[in-house]
């Protein structure tokens, strides 16, 4: 494949000045080095433009048009400037959803990373057998398809015959007899948090553990000889050395938890109060696909994209810096 590229480039390039055979040899190879990377990028760039680029363009265009049900049936979409933004962002329901989404994202991301870090340190502290038991159970949880996981948790938290209510009732908390977890916003989000933390901790724990094992033994040995106890070794050597891994997984968690849509959507299907449990994605989904207000949905979606970029900007910059590009 790369040979074809190497052969194809000189023939399509500008004609090389006539030179002796000795001088000609390096020319094609140097040209290959210039042209090949762009050719190699073409498929990825094309698919990204098609699957993500065009939708973003459509979204920017239609966030400034009146695009509702009438336009679905052939009416031309009228340019309305920033009307959609004004309409959507002056409505109080959006801001409730924004605050809820950010709070949910931060709570889940930090909880996940804190637990993951704790589990990783625990794996380092225990012997091999116990560590493998913990790793296998984390892997099993990680491997669970998201929809199957949400379905199982719905069953666990089922109000009538779920294990959670049975357990809480049997330890004397009669409040939970027949308690409908998904019917109230606070317990709805408690269940959602349990699901998301359960699903996300394995990746974080195993990544951080891999980072911990990459800390050279000599460094730890040297610290031990200098009289550092386990606490000092953890706080002053291990954590600083694995900081890059922790920031990467925290970055990923924040981004992933801001895009929580499916879990909420699936939980809402069992009769939850929809407007009080919507996160941003669900809000957009209902506005666009539910009510057919594509202009307004596009405006909110652009806001979500901007929010993602702003939230992740410092992390991306630090990643790029670390990478010494």
């Amino acid at each position: 494949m790369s040979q074809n590229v190497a052969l194809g480039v000189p023939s399509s390039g500008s004609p090389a000045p006539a030179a002796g055979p000795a001088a000609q040899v390096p020319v094609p190879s140097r040209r290959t080095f210039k042209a090949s990377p762009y050719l190699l990028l073409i498929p990825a760039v094309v698919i990204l433009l098609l699957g993500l680029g065009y939708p973003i363009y459509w979204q920017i265009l239609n966030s400034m048009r009146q695009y509702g049900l009438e336009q679905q049936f052939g009416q031309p979409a009228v340019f309305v400037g920033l009307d959609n933004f004004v309409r959507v962002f002056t409505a109080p329901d959006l801001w409730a959803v924004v605050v809820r989404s950010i709070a949910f994202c931060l709570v889940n991301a930090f909880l996940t990373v804190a637990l993951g870090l704790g589990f990783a340190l625990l794996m380092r502290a225990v012997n091999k057998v116990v560590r493998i038991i913990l790793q296998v159970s984390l892997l099993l949880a990680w491997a669970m398809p998201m929809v199957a996981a949400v379905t199982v948790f719905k069953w666990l938290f089922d109000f009538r015959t779920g294990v959670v209510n049975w357990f809480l009732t049997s330890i004397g908390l009669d409040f939970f007899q027949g308690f409908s977890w998904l019917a109230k916003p606070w317990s709805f989000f408690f269940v959602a948090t349990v699901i998301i933390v359960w699903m996300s901790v394995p990746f974080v724990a195993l990544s951080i553990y891999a980072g911990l094992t990459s800390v050279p033994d000599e460094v730890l040995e040297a610290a031990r000889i200098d009289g550092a106890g386990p606490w000092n070794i953890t706080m002053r050597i291990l954590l600083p050395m694995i900081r890059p891994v922790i920031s990467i997984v925290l970055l990923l968690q924040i981004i992933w938890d801001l895009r929580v849509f499916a879990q909420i959507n699936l939980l809402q299907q069992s009769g939850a109060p929809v407007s009080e449990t919507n996160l941003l994605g669900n809000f957009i989904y209902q506005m666009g696909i539910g009510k057919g207000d594509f202009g307004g949905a596009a405006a909110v979606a652009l806001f979500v994209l901007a929010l993602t970029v702003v939230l992740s900007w410092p992390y991306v910059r630090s990643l790029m810096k670390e990478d010494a590009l």
Partner: protein
Amino acid sequence: MSTATAPSIHLHASDVARTQHAPGARRRKIGKILLSLLAIGISLAWIFPVYWMVLSAFTPNAWLRTTTPEFLPVHATLANFRAAMSGDGFSNSLKMSVVITITTVVAVLAFAFLAALAISRWRFKGRTTFILAVLFVQMLPAEGLFIAQYKMLSNANLLNSVIGISVLYTAAIVPFTIWMLRGFVAGVPADLEEAAMVDGLSRFQAFLRITFPLLAPGLVASGVYAFLQAWNEYTVALIALPSGDRATLPLWLSNFLSASAQRGVDWGQVMAASTLIAIPVIVFFLFVQNRMTSGLVSGAVKG
């Protein structure tokens, strides 16, 4: 130990250390046992939902409705599986899922591999911009785009089609895969390839025989990542496959639960359906888990 050569202060210090050793060791041992118990408790808690899913799948519904749950498989039956698989729903969705996943994995691996090669082997104008774009694009949430993607597919008459959703999946998965593979490609020194070329192989041969085998773990890890993403995906499937009879397995499962809810959820059947979807993924995942974890992590760490 080193009494003959060590200065007296050092000797003194090591004596102090030795006298503290005995009670410290006992305390450490107790601490270690407590930590092990904690680790085993966490393992049980984390594995319980998976266990409960499989157990419920094999339990007749009559027993699931009793007020006191049974934690062991005493009434095992396959009736739930038979009921969940009856009708066309399951087999149609299985077909959809297989076709879409294979299309996506092949496209993702090919596109991401070429791009990873480009950015890790060449320094070119626009490289930093491309990496920056990849980093940002992989962070874009599906819900920030899916209304537009829905309209795009519907305008192109590609709703409910394999090709439409595969394009969206590939575009969504390629960025992270590039980032992941990049770490692997950078980990194989270009010198190795050049050495092989000095020994008389062409660039293509050198790549195929030297670099490619070394990249295999990275490709496997990326392939598994792409497979899991596509196989388990729900959000994009929800908007791209609105017609119920073209559902992928995750979508089918959620429809199955909703349909069951109308006549009082038959949790045995729903758990059987969940198990059918989860078990192949879990088996596959555990089968490649070593490469998977090291792949995700080393990609992330090096990346």
